[in-house]
């Protein structure tokens, strides 16, 4: 298994999620996940064929530039050695899938991300967003450097209006850093996003079929004995 590796790093969580969204939609790459070292640096890791990875990384850089990210660093390794894959968290998600983290009840909904510098602004913005539109607060994420991101889910119109309102509230309370709306995330992006435990529905295990002793069919022989006597009278009797 010698798939290529692509990495792209920005200094904002909403931006890297938006970049990952663009990358997964641009070519046949698999999103491994986000690596969040502190200081606000977030890295999206993708794997796939070399052509797909190159396309995806170019697309990701373009999107990151649209988001006014000055410090973008990216890397494409056509054939990482197995030792690299064993040590670094860049290998495929087989181990994660094996854990079966459950099924998020908020899937198939648009994603909105709002990042502030400082916790009160994030909480205030989240409160305003929940009161503005029909959205669910899915999780929050901190990436260091005082940056924390609130993640909301809902239909795309609700999410867009909620983010718009939350943006002003966050700016009023503290410092707004970045916003992003993803109208229709792919499944693997959803898997990579954090979801609060209250929204994770654990898969229900079906009860094992236990062999039960079947009751024997009751013989209805009691009534068989009750016979109504029939007397036949001979004809001609008065």
């Amino acid at each position, binding site marked *: 298994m010698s798939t290529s590796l692509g990495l792209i790093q920005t200094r904002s969580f*909403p*931006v890297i999620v938006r970049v990952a969204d663009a990358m997964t939609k641009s070519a046949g790459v698999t999103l491994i996940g986000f690596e969040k070292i502190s200081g606000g640096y977030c890295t999206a890791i993708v794997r796939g064929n070399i052509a797909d990875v190159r396309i995806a990384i170019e697309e990701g850089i373009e999107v990151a530039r649209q988001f006014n990210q000055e410090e973008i660093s990216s890397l494409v390794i056509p054939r990482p050695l197995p030792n690299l894959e064993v040590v670094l968290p860049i290998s495929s998600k087989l181990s994660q899938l094996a854990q079966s983290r459950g099924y998020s009840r908020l899937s198939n909904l648009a994603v909105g991300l709002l990042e502030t510098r400082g916790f009160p602004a994030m909480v205030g913005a989240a409160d305003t967003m929940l009161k503005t539109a029909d959205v669910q607060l899915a999780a929050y994420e901190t990436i260091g450097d005082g940056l924390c991101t609130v993640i909301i889910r809902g239909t795309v119109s609700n999410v867009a209006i909620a983010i*718009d309102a939350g*943006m*002003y509230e966050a700016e009023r309370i503290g410092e707004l850093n*970045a916003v*992003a709306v993803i109208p229709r995330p792919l499944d693997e992006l959803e898997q990579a996003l954090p979801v609060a435990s209250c929204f994770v529905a654990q898969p229900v295990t079906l009860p094992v079929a236990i062999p039960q002793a079947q009751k024997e069919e009751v013989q209805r022989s009691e009534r068989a004995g009750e016979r109504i006597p029939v007397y036949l009278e001979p004809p001609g009797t008065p």
Partner: protein
Amino acid sequence: MRSTLASTLPTSLRSQAWLVQSGKAHYVVSGEVDIEEEASIGPGVLLRANPGCRIHIGRGVCIGAGSILHACGGSLVVEAGATLGRGVLVIGQGTISENACIGSEATLLNCSILRQAVIPPGSLLGDPTWRSEQETTGVTQTEPEETERVQELPAAPVQGVSEAPPPSSEAEVTPQEQAEPTQEKRGVGKLNGIPGRAELERLLGKIYPHRQVLSSRDGRF
């Protein structure tokens, strides 16, 4: 250069061309502006390309006096043979195709003109609610203003645009500020530089097409 222009022009126009040259007409160029030979540019024309944008003036283009061409959000291309009347205002990106004729005092906001099209004088084309990329992303607040230079017009208006403009302290010239369609329409100016804001605005514009018209001055519902 003088001789080349003079030789290409018909005899009746030669005297006029010389007149322009002797009158030392001025026009202002700022940013990446690329003017091909044999384009005629009247006096007092402002050609301004924002950082990352460019203006291309094709062969034989005629731009009337006092016109303003301001490229923002992309390339502004005036193809060969197009004629722009006096005082035409072109803002944004787009292409004015071959041999198009724009009447005087017309305003083109971020739109393209088909070839051979004739635009009547004083008309307004494009979406009036359109806002320039510069405003939404706040490029001007972060990037240093490009300096401008006033070019003297020799007989043929050929620009050496490749050379870097000399740095000067007076960066901004007032006529170009006036050329901005809507400067700081929204009250919350701090939000303009936020990453993702522009994309959110585009998304909201698609979901709610009449939002810009309905929203109040501070940009909120």
